[in-house]
């Protein structure tokens, strides 16, 4: 599904990602952990085209993503969330979600001018969006501004936006960091359900209990490299991992 080999990126001589390789099988949840500054988020930026790698290659479903702009990679079926949430705070929760649907006729000049063409699609997206908001329990917030709902609800919304794009691969940057314990459980449950529906998920997360509950496979990064990989129980018990975190 996702094959990364020898990925490297330096900033002013600092090697943020330094020969990182990993394979992600379809329909699995892979945890990406490691101390701050290990290069996890940079790896996400490299996969999704927001940064251009110095070396190495990313393949998604057999297709090399090199040189593709972020919006193209997104359209291929790779969605992501951001560590510091990115949502349009001056649009409503519903509008943020409607923005995420792919292939909207009304997003082109011609389509927008000939309203008949997009109205039906918009109504349909509207229904899907309402259903999505319902499924994560924030349907009652649909008409509120995204910037004015709680942090946890914003996290749910950004996750829901990823789903609305129809992506098959979700790259989630700290989906449960900073949210209340019961919401952590809800999000973990939701991600497991998504895996059941065939989605492939890579999660960056510091909450190791969530990682243990979620992941089929855990990859540990330190100083831009993979230092360990395996089932959650074995990896989390690994001495090198503990050492990397403590150092």
């Amino acid at each position, binding site marked *: 599904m996702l094959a990364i080999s020898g990925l490297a990126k330096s900033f002013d001589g600092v090697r943020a990602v330094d020969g990182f390789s990993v394979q992600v099988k379809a329909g699995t949840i892979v945890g990406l952990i490691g101390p701050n500054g290990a290069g996890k988020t940079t790896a996400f930026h490299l996969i999704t085209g927001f940064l251009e790698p110095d070396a190495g290659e990313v393949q998604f479903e057999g297709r090399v993503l090199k040189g593709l*702009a972020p919006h193209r990679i997104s359209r291929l079926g790779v969605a992501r969330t951001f560590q510091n949430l*990115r949502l349009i705070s001056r649009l409503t929760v519903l509008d943020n979600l*409607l923005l995420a649907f*792919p292939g909207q006729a009304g997003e082109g000049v011609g*389509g927008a*001018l000939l309203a008949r063409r997009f109205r039906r699609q*918009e109504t349909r997206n509207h229904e899907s969006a309402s259903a999505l908001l319902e499924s994560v329990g924030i349907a009652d917030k649909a008409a509120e501004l995204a910037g004015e709902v709680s942090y946890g609800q914003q996290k749910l919304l950004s996750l829901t936006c990823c789903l609305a794009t129809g992506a098959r691969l979700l790259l989630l940057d700290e989906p449960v960091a900073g949210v209340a314990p019961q919401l952590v459980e809800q999000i973990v449950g939701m991600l497991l359900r998504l895996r059941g529906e065939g989605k492939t998920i890579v999660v960056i997360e510091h909450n190791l209990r969530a990682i243990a509950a979620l992941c089929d496979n855990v990859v540990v990064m330190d100083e831009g490299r993979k230092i360990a990989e395996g089932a959650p129980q074995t990896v989390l018990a690994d001495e090198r991992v503990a050492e990397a975190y403590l150092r």
Partner: protein
Amino acid sequence: MDYLLHILILVGLYGILAVSLNLIAGYTGLLSVAHAAFYGVGAYVTALMALHWHTPFLLNVVAGMVVAGVVGVLVAAPSLRVHDDYFVLTTFAFQVIAFSILNNWVDFTGGPMGLPGIPQPALFGLAISSHWGFLLLASAFLTAAFWVSHRLAESPYGRVLKAIREDEVFARSLGKDVTRYKVEVFVLGAMLAATAGSLYAAYITFIDPTSFTVPESIFILAIVIVGGAGNLWGSLVGAALLVTLPEALRFLGMPSAVAANMRQILYGALLVLFMLFRPQGIVAERVGLREPRRARRPRRETRSAGN
């Protein structure tokens, strides 16, 4: 009476300019100070074609739009590679260049002497020369420009524009081709501004470079901001207000030499006051898209005190 009609015609012209700039600056957040240059492109193309080739007015309008569109692409492509503040500077540079060309390419544009004797238009065999005729024409153009802009603004297209204004990275991550949208909306705005230029040339029958200067661009931007960025109705209100306000000064019995300066001071003061006390403008941006076939919930007051 003609004086009143003249003011209304000007309101119509500036309405077109403000509505089209609102798409670029208000909705997409691209602060362009080159709008008067595209206004000028429309005016000069129309005037030159009418003077030299005696081509029909509507053809000249279309030609003006095409040329403005092409120039728009040429300006947008390099300008949009840079960000925010630098975008303002590159459009400013273009505006200055455009004025220099109009002012110095004497053989082609008449230079500072301008182009006199531009023929008045005839539509479907009907000559338009009265103020009433031009008011009707200006109203028709404004209606068309407003309709196009409104359709774009209130559709998923407008939603993407706002998303780009608020958070480009988020828009990209959801698969939106941000660069394409920026170029597209800039070019569309330029083309609409050109139609106002065509009207102006045909109405006044004389154009010179002083109508298409940096202060003119800033004046159009002031209409957008005072009227309400991100709300097209605001641009109409803003145009009506800012065009008529200085005219009111005349009736205060101010000597014309003073009034001309007063006008600049008035615009400046108005802009500062709005930035301080009502940055959202007279008609504030409406939050959220109209929901199709569904009762809207009463919206909460969305503006915080510090906004």
